[in-house]
Each structure stands twice: as C-alpha cells, then as structure tokens.
C-alpha cells in the first residue's frame, strides 16, 4: 500500500457530482454541422489540409500538426467541408477563431482504420508517430499534445507514471463515468504508455468519492502484468492538479519552472489513456470525448459521448434544457471554468463539462469588498503562494514584483477566491497580471527582433555604400590607366618616321590652301578694279598679306621637302 502524503492548502467545495451519475454514458446525437477549431490544444494551431467542397470520411485527417508542439485534427463524421474560416470558438475572450466546418451527411462512414495489432512489435518511434497522427491531446483540461509527453528522449528517465483519475473539480464526472464503464480501455491505454515510458511503478490517483470507479479499476487490474496500483486519496480540491497529485502520491514537489519529467514523473489523465488505446489498437483518432452535461436547468443530467465539433446548443437540446431557468452557461467546472455567452460554440478536446446553471445554483458574484488581510487565501493556496501579495501587485500593476512572487506557479484553481470573505475575484486579477506579463514579454521579443533587423539593415546599407565607393575607385583607376596608355601611344606616333611625311603633307596642304586664297583674293581685287567698287585699298592690303603668307607656306614646304630629300 502506497503511503499518501499531502499538499499545502486545499478546500472542500460541495462536489455536486451525484446529479450527473444517475445514468450511464449516452451517445450524443450527430449534429448536422460540426465546427472544428484549428486550435484545440496547447501549441501551434493545426494547418488545414482539406478545401471547401471536399468530402471527408469519419476519422479522416483534415488538419496537420504544425511544428513540434501541435496536434492533428480529424473529421468526427463523414460529410462535406463547407467553410474554413472564423467561427465562434470556446475561448475565454469570446472571440472567433479559425475553424473547419463540416456539414455531416448522416452516414457516419468510417475511413479505413489504421490500427496497430501489436504495439510491442513495432518501433517506439513509429508508435509515437501514430499517436501524433491520431491527434491525441491531454483530455484533463490543458490539452497538451500527448506525443510530446511520451517522447521524452534520453535526458529524462521516468520512474513513476501517474494516471490522474482524481477529477477533483465539483460537478464534473466525465472521468468517473469513463472509469466505471470502460476501465479496460483505460488500462489498455496505460499499458501502451507504460510500454513507451518504461516506468518502474504506475500509480492511479483517485479521490475517495468515486467508490464505483475504484472498484471497477481494481477488478480489471488483476488481468494485467503491470505494477499498477490504485491509490485512493482523500477528497480535497484541487488534488487533481498535476503538481498537487504528484505531491500527494510521491511527496515530491515539482520545482517552480520545471516539468514533472524533470523529477522522473509523467502524469496522464485517464481519458487520455483511453484515447491512446483507441488510437493505437482500434485505429480511431481523437474524434470524440466524454462530456458531463449538468446543472439544474437541464432535464437529463448525465455524461454524453460527444463528437468533437458538436455545438453546445445541440447538446443542451439533447439534454432537454429549460432556457428560462438557465441563468448561466459554464464551460468546464464551477471553479476553473469560464462563463459562455454564445451556445453555438463547439465541444473541443479540452471540453470536459458543460453546466447549465440556474440562478439559485450559481448566483451572480457579490460585489468585491476591500481586502481585510485575513490571510485565508494563503492558507488554502495549493501552490504555497501568497495570494494576497499577488493581489496587491496585480491591482497596482507591479507585474515584476508579482512575477518575483512566483505568479506563474499559480494554477488558477480558484481556492483563494472561494474562501475570500471579501469576495475579491482573485483569480481574475492573476489572469489579468499573467496576460499583461505575457504580452510584455512578447513585445520585448518583438523589439529584440526589430533591433536585429534594424542593425542588419544598417550594416547592409553601410556595406553597400562601401562597395559603391570601392567600385567608383576601381573605375577611376581603370580610367586613369586607360588615359596613360593612350598618351603613351600618341607620344610614340609623333616620334616615329611616318610622322614626318604626314607633317610634310600638312605643309603642302597649307601651301596650296594659301595659294588658293591668294588667287581668290586677286580675282576679287581684279573684279573690284574693273567695276570700280569701294574698299579697293582694303582688298589690296589683303592680297599683299596673303601673298606674304602663301610665300611663307611655300617656303616652309620647300624647306621641309628639301630637308627630307
């Protein structure tokens, strides 16, 4: 018998689980329209691989996992893709996000299933790829892609595998119902996980308010050769938190900022184990999950086996909702869930519960009062934080201080707000502070990127200027060289012998030109004398001048030719 330890704090809210456990799991109706958000998990959103108008079969992959942490998406039923784009999706912001919409044809026609008959006989890598391709993400609430958690590589040695069956949040009974009705699926899934991680022991942590589930699991465990133990822990919210359950079962506290694998532990939810079994041995990708429909505004409060992408409104109708009585619609549990305005949003991989509550059940929150520093929040905090300090820091926007007080270790379980006598919405303050810090970090990251690009650009511009200068210099040098070469050539021609002849020719031409000019001038003079025109003196002077010039030219030519001969 494993010893049970304890974690700090915790509360005992009324569990309200009995309402939804009266009837077995029921198959939810096939809706006419399935809305599949591309982001149903933590990590990068999936990339669609189908187009509008494509006919898809049940289980056919419609979106690929992008990047390391991501999960693929599959068609939950056969039909036609009618729209890919923004649709209302389950998110606290209430904003629309990218979805694939499938108009179901009602045939529910399966694609040929790719099951692995004997998972022990194939390589672990192939098995992990199969799980990744099947789009398995954690069904506990966070939706972390399962293949990452099962593929830890050589740097993590896992000695304890913890199967989280605590389901500590009030109202939710999806895991409880699964354990009661399909314990074999869970244990077969555990076998596969154990094959991949090779832990030395396997602990199934379950709260003592689920006696039927405990019995069902214990009955089946005898059939397995694995070192599995069902550990019953006392009911205390939030014992189902990953780090809290680890502390309960092993007394190991996962350090701040670390993951359980760093201390040799991997935690998987029971639903995820069953999904792994279905993906591997039945070849069914993650296209459905169990959702608890509860709250006093519903006629049938029970668990439903729901296809991913089924709109909330379809489920509410199936459970015979009384809309006049419904005061508030909550996705998730009453502690950590979020209020929903729009019931057209679909069920996704992380939707474990839908509460259609009446006003008596969940009255509006009373107005917040000033903090009286009673310290009750500190006493119930399961993460051993100082909620009051964090509250002041968040309110005063001193986010750095909040971070130094380990704000990011807050699991947002809501225990502090539950006990607060002043009704301060503490968790909202923490969420606000967290998202402000995340935003600041993202901006910081962006500014670093911008600086790098700016500096790279500056360097490039400087290099271009330098290159231009270099080219200009080279051109100038080349031009100078060319000029020098030409000059040299010219010098050589003037000094060479053939030049003398050219000179002689020039002189000869000059002499003949002078002669012609003289001749023309004489003619003009003669003409003037004949007709007795004005300016005869001027012409006579010109003729005399030209006579002199022609004589000079003649002499120069004679001299030159004489010298040559």
């Amino acid at each position, binding site marked *: 018998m494993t010893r049970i330890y304890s974690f700090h704090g915790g509360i005992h809210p009324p569990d309200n689980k009995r309402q939804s456990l009266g009837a077995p799991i029921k198959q939810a109706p096939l809706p006419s329209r399935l809305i599949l958000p591309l*982001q149903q998990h933590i990590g990068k959103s999936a990339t669609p691989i189908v187009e509008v108008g494509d006919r898809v079969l049940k289980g056919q992959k419609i979106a690929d996992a992008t990047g390391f942490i991501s999960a693929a998406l599959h068609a939950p039923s056969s039909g036609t893709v009618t729209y890919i784009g923004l649709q209302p*999706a389950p*998110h*606290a*912001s209430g*904003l629309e*996000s990218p979805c694939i919409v499938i108009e179901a044809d009602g045939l529910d026609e399966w694609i040929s299933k790719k099951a692995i008959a004997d998972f022990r006989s194939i390589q672990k890598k192939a098995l992990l790829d199969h799980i990744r391709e099947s789009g398995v993400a954690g069904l506990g609430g966070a939706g972390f892609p399962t293949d990452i958690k099962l593929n830890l590589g050589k740097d993590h040695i896992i000695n304890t595998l913890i199967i989280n069956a605590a389901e500590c949040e009030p109202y939710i009974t999806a895991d409880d119902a699964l354990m009661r009705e399909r314990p074999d699926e869970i244990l077969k899934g555990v076998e596969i996980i154990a094959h991949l991680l090779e832990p030395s022991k396997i602990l199934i942590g379950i709260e003592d308010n689920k006696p039927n589930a405990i019995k069902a699991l214990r009955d089946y465990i005898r059939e397995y050769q694995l070192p599995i133990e069902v550990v019953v822990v006392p009911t205390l919210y939030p014992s189902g938190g990953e780090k809290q359950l680890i502390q309960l079962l092993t007394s190991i506290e996962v350090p701040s900022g670390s993951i359980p694998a760093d201390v040799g532990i991997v935690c998987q939810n029971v639903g995820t184990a069953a999904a792994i079994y279905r993906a591997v041995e039945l070849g069914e990708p993650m296209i459905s999950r169990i959702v608890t429909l509860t709250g006093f505004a519903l006629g049938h409060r029970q668990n439903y086996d729901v296809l991913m992408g089924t709109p909330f409104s379809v489920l509410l109708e199936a459970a015979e909702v009384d809309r006049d009585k419904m005061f508030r619609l909550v996705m998730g549990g009453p502690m950590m869930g979020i209020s929903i305005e729009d019931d057209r949003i679909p069920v996704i991989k992380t939707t474990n519960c839908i509460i259609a509550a009446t*006003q008596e059940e969940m*009255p*509006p929150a*009373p*107005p*917040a*009062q000033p903090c009286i520093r009673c310290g009750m929040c500190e006493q119930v905090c399961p993460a051993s934080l100082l909620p009051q300090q964090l509250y002041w820091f968040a309110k005063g926007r001193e986010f750095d201080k909040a971070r130094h007080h380990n704000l990011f270790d807050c699991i947002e379980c809501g225990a502090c707000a539950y006990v607060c006598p002043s*009704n*301060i*919405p503490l968790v*909202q*303050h923490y*969420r*606000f502070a*967290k*998202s*402000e810090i995340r*935003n*600041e970090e*993202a*901006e910081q990251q*962006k*500014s*670093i*990127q*911008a*600086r790098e*690009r*700016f500096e*790279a*650009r500056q360097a490039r511009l400087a290099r271009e200027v330098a290159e231009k200068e270099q080219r200009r210099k080279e051109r100038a040098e080349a031009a100078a060289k060319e000029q020098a070469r030409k000059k040299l050539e010219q010098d050589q021609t003037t000094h060479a012998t053939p030049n003398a002849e050219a000179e002689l020719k020039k002189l000869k031409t000059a002499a003949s030109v002078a002669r012609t000019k003289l001749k023309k001038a004489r003619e003009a003079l003669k003409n003037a004398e004949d007709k007795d025109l004005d300016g005869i003196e001027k012409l006579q002077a010109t003729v005399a001048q030209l006579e002199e010039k022609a004589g000079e030219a003649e002499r120069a030519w004679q001299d030159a030719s004489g010298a040559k001969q």
Partner: protein
Amino acid sequence: MTIILTAILILLSLALVFGVILGFAAVRFKVEGDPIVDQIDQLLPQTQCGQCGYPGCKPYAEAISNGDAINKCPPGGQSTIEALATLLDREVVPLDAEHGEEKPKTVAYIREDECIGCTKCIQACPVDAILGAAKQMHTVIVSECTGCDLCVEPCPVDCIDMIPVPVTPNNWKWPAPVSDPNLILTDRGRGHLLQEGSK
C-alpha cells in the same frame, strides 16, 4: 628616521602592488562599449520611428545617457518612461506631446491594387519589413512590421494604411477586474438583490 623611511617604503610598495593589480584589472576586465546605453536601448521599443528626433532607438538611448529627457518616445508610452525612470533613477514624467501621443499598436497595410511598385516605402522601412521590387507590387511582412509609420509619408499614391493590430484569441488579454470603490461593507449582498429585482 629609519621608522619614517620604512613607513614610506611600505606605503610606496603597497601603492605599487595595488597599482599593478588595478592596471591589470583595467585591461583584463575592460568593458566594451557603454553598458548603460545598451540597457536603455533594450527598454526602447525598437520601432526606429524617429519620433524622438533621433535617427533610431540607439541614438536616442545614447542621448538619454547623455542627459536627454526620457519622455520622447510615443511608441513606448508611459510604461517605457516608467522603466527608464527606474533604470536611471529619474523622475517619472508624462509623455512629451511634442513628439506625438501614445497610439494603439498598428501594422502597415499596402493596398496592393494601387501600388505602383516605386520601392520608396522599401527604402524607408527601418526593419526591412516590406517586400517587393521595382515595378512589382509590394507587400508588408506583418510579423516584422513595427508600426513606425515611416513608410506612409514616402508613398506617392497613398496606398499604405496603418491598421490597428486585430485582437485574436492568441493576443487577447484578460481585462482587469473592475471593482466599485464606493462600496461599503453594509452594501454587501445588495448587488445580488438589485440584479434579482431587475430581472
């Protein structure tokens, strides 16, 4: 006499030894550049928009370290001023309106049908976030755009818009919870009754 001489000698030798150590440390642990400028530069938003009057964030960081005012950066806004005030131990001052006002984050968007491919915006972009070539349509790489506005002015056909960054589930922020400060303890529960009464 000897005592005085010994004292002087000892002090001299000590001075020599420490001088050598200090000299060695000055060479061995020399700090490259001015660390305070880098620290200031890290706090600035790196939009390189020049609204501060300097040709980029680094020059403004240098100017701040030389005593310039810390309130000249509109993209950084009040939070940057506060961070700078903490770093430099100066007083927090409101943003200098002369250099512009704090605006919501935007990205440039080129109306591609109207783009004539003049490359003027490409030359203006300080972070090389615009893609295109001469006589070809240009487009903005949204993830790299800092929203600095510098491409808007040079565009000869005014086909660049600065559009606010859309809110998606990925960058959505939880709002701060609002509480009514006028409430006193005896009002407790009244909100509940009021809501019931109005229903």
